């Protein structure tokens, strides 16, 4: 209907296309990060739900020493239990040709002649096992792919001291191992840890577990009470060396996936809200200016009978066009980024299918949020104009009221040149806008700090972990506790420079009504390889009496130095001990408790035993040493710390780099958007004034000084603001990442601050350049007439 008005709309839009483009880009950043994060969460959730549901992921899990299969009925009788599956799970070492160091694996029994009721396998390639099939296994896809194993290839494993070459007949995935972490490993390493499935009968025979099991999973009825089931299960399993049972929330793989989604959710709200608020602010600034320049046109439109509604709608449409373009761009980019991120997750999470998808709600919500924030930004800009009576609106605005600024009133006047006075009076004249511009630029900088911080702190965490705490080259784990004499045998292996004992025991720690499953690590009194660090990250002595708890574990249990913990040992005779907390130590990874090894052995009433060793190796001897270790059946696991660090660098480092790159792009867009728009508006507001000054004989440089002086002051104010907000964001992030597995230390390098400032300055210079080109083109005649 209102065609002429729509034409005006398009032409006006075109005239301020640069500013609108800047807004579109900021909006697109907001929408795309939102769609990316929530799309990825949705995709993970969907894959997970479908997978868990179709492949009967269990609800309750427990490990035990050994129990006869006959107790099954007892477990079935627990109220709320609908299905039970009992398995044999056994650690193995694997020899892979061409790899010096041994890999470890988990061999899991599969019932013969029927499909498992719980934790069923997804067959990727090949076939399932035949009943009672000997010499054949199914391999986890990740391990097979990491080594390029094909169907029919044989894998050489040491099972219970016997070497066997087993044929891979199928490649599978399991809902229990979506995320799979080897024993003692910090990061997933598909080359050095794999999961395998074998006929139950064959496995029972191989590990002397005929008619017995050591792993149980349970599915609950709909109305089942998990706490209840766990308690009763623990009672039944206790005589059989049962460890405390746990639900999905503590199941390693599920916990990781869940944790990842939780973190994405925090990020998913955080960034888009910032982007869209900045967009709303820019919309407001641009529209306020637009309305101001068109004040007389608005008066005329009202005079000829356009309603306030129609006029507001006219300006709203202008913004809505921007929202539409920003949304399309944002959704497109979001899908692209989301697909990339999902693809990255396929490296860590092994789902049968993990494809990026996003729900209509996610899209609608983000677009709606964007629209609403933009509409609010517009309406506040139009409100004043809509209120004005038409007769008044048609009169040009009276000259703005200026006054001496605060600084001048302070008596600093005599130090200011006339040009500088013009500059600071403008800064002071619109305090709200100055404030918002400052915050807007500050926010973009804080995003940069935040991005770099992730890199800094992860590097720092690795440094602390590997250079200060876990300084051993390799850590060995035995199949079962051995006499301390084993240490001497290890010392004699080729290339071994130094050995330290460790006695690790699984425990259940209790304090009041807080409880946590953990393990106590018994260490030499003054360990040199595997050290513990105090709060100041200095090597600490192992207390002679009592426990040293990691700060996170102390926090989880709500204990402080001097409290007495109840320690339920989950091994052998399973004594319950009372041990005092002697020290709180710092640890960024894991939830550990440490103790003097001799004292621990005393508490356990065992002789001098160890469960593993930390070893320092002459790197020249790596090959022969690893070869030797592969042949020692008593060694169940071996972690090469340097490899772990490399893997972390490769996989996580690369992904973090991508995220940092993305954040840099986004932050640059924001700072560019804010700075360009503010400078452009300043030009538009003062075009006439600047042209007059040029007519009076000022040089272009002097005019630019006035125009960019204001911006420069705002940017200078924004830098401390950005540093402050950035630091707060970092604290917030560290807080949200403070999980039981990882703590992110709040470490911000000087470089991070420097780089952030540099990027903001670069985008300022670019904005200035673009606006400068327009200053050069100021037409002195038409500027005098006030035609923009």
């Amino acid at each position, binding site marked *: *209907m*209102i*065609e*002429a*008005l729509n*034409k*005006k709309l398009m*032409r*006006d839009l075109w*005239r301020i296309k640069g500013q609108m483009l800047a807004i579109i880009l900021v909006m697109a950043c907001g929408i795309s990060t939102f769609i990316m994060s929530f799309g990825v969460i949705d995709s993970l959730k969907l894959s997970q739900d479908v997978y868990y549901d179709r492949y009967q992921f269990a609800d309750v899990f427990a490990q035990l020493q050994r129990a006869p299969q006959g107790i099954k009925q007892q477990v079935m009788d627990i109220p709320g239990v609908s299905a039970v599956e009992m398995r044999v799970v056994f650690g193995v070492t694997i020899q892979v040709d061409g790899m010096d160091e041994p890999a470890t694996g988990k061999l899991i029994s599969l019932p013969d002649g029927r499909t498992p009721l719980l934790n069923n396998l997804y067959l990727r390639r090949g076939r399932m096992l035949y009943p009672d099939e000997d010499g054949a296994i199914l391999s986890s896809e990740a391990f097979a792919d990491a080594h390029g194993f094909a169907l029919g290839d044989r894998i050489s494993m040491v099972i219970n001291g016997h070497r066997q070459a087993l044929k891979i007949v199928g490649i599978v995935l399991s809902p229990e191992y979506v995320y799979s972490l080897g024993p003692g490993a910090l990061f997933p390493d598909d080359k050095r840890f794999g999961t395998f499935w074998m006929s139950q009968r064959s496995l029972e025979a191989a590990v002397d577990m005929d008619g017995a099991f050591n792993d149980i999973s349970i599915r609950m009825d709909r109305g089942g009470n998990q706490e209840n089931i766990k308690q009763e299960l623990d009672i039944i399993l206790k005589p059989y060396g049962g460890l405390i049972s746990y639900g999905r929330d503590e199941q390693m793989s599920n916990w990781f996936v869940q944790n990842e989604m939780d973190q994405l959710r925090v990020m998913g709200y955080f960034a888009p809200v910032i982007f869209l608020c900045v967009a709303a602010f820019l919309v407001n600034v641009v529209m306020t200016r637009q309305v101001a320049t068109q004040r*007389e*046109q608005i*008066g*005329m*439109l*009202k*005079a*000829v*009978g*356009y*309603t*306030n509604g*129609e006029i507001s709608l006219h300006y709203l449409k202008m913004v809505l066009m921007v929202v539409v373009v920003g949304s399309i761009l944002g959704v497109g980019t979001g899908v692209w980024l989301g697909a990339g991120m999902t693809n990255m997750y396929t490296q860590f999470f092994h789902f049968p299918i993990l494809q990026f998808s996003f729900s209509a709600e996610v899209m609608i919500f983000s677009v709606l949020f964007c629209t609403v924030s933009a509409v609010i930004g517009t309406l506040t800009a139009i409100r004043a104009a809509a209120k004005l*009576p*038409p*007769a*008044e609106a*048609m009169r040009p605005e009276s000259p703005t009221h200026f006054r001496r600024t605060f600084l001048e009133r302070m008596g600093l006047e005599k130090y200011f040149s006339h040009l500088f006075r013009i500059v600071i009076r403008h800064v002071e004249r619109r305090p709200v806008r100055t404030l918002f511009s400052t915050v807007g630029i500050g926010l973009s900088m804080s995003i940069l700090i935040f991005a770099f911080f992730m890199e800094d702190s992860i590097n720092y965490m690795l440094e602390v972990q590997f250079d200060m705490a876990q300084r051993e080259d390799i850590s060995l784990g035995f199949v079962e506790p051995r006499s301390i004499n084993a240490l001497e045998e290890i010392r004699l292996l080729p290339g071994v420079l130094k050995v330290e004992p460790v006695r690790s025991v699984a425990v259940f720690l209790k304090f009041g009504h807080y409880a946590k499953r953990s393990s106590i690590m018994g260490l030499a009194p003054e360990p040199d390889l595997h050290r513990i660090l105090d709060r100041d990250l200095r090597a600490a002595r192992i207390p002679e009496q009592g426990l040293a708890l990691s700060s996170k574990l102390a926090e989880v249990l709500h204990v402080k130095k001097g409290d007495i913990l109840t320690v339920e040992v989950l091994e052998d005779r399973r004594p319950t001990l009372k041990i005092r907390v002697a020290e709180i130590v710092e640890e960024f990874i894991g939830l550990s408790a440490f103790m003097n090894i001799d004292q621990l052995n005393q508490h356990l009433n065992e002789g001098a035993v160890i469960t593993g060793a930390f070893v320092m190796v002459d790197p020249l001897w790596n090959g022969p040493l690893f070869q030797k270790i592969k042949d020692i059946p008593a060694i169940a696991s071996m972690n090469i710390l340097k490899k772990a660090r490399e893997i972390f660098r490769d996989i996580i480092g690369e992904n973090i780099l991508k995220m940092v790159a993305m954040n840099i792009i986004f932050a640059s867009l924001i700072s560019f958007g804010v700075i360009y728009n503010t400078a452009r508006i300043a030009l538009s507001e003062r075009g006439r004034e600047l042209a007059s000054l040029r007519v009076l004989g000022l040089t272009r440089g002097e005019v630019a000084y006035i125009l960019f002086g204001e911006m420069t002051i705002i940017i200078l104010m924004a830098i401390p603001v950005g540093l402050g907000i950035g630091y707060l964001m970092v604290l917030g992030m560290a807080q949200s990442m403070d999980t039981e597995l990882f703590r992110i230390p709040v470490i911000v390098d000087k470089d991070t601050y420097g780089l952030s400032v540099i990027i903001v300055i670069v985008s300022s210079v670019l904005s200035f350049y673009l606006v400068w080109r327009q200053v050069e083109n100021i037409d002195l005649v038409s500027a005098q007439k006030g*035609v923009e």
Partner: protein
Amino acid sequence: MSENNGVNGNITFRTEGLTKDYVTGETVVQALRGVTLEIPKGDMVVLLGPSGSGKSTFLNIIGGLDSPTSGEVYFKKDKLSDYSEQQLTRFRRHNVGFVFQSYNLVPSLTAYENVALVTDIALDPIPPMEALKAVNLENRARHFPSQLSGGEQQRVAIARALAKRPEVLLCDEPTGALDSETGIVVLKALQEVNKNYGTTTIIITHNAAIADMADRVIYFGDGQVVDVKVNKNPVGPEEISW
């Protein structure tokens, strides 16, 4: 002069004791101080008076652009001074055509589109092209305001005002910026509209000679009506001596 209380169907505007004060800071400007007037239907009325005498203020108030400080304005039988903001908008939209002193064209729209801006929302408009023809501008329809001379812009403004077939046409110094020849063209256009459609037309001017073409001349002075003259034999604009 006003006993009929607006019942007389031949009266378009009637004001009674109209005042308008502008308050700026400490000072109060009394732009209108009690204007009582009647403007009959179909008349061509000219408002004369010195600068600052309140002519524009008066025109803005009867056109529904501004509201009086006190006093009453009637448009036919309706009390305009009691109108709500919405009713005023509707009144302007359907009944009034304005020609502003400063043209007030939208710079981003062509002459044609500027006229269409008004016909888009009118009930029974003249097609924009015809309105432009009425002011002899059909061949400049596709030009933007910046490509038109002042007189041409003013004529576009007139085309825009008359295109909605308003009942009243209010013009604030429509020839103020024009040379005499162009002025005549503009005035002729206004007179034709007045004659052909019976549009009540009120024109503010500083050119006393223009008064010769009016049915009625109202003299303003210091916010009041000083004199009203009825012209029995109005002349055509071409006969006016500038």
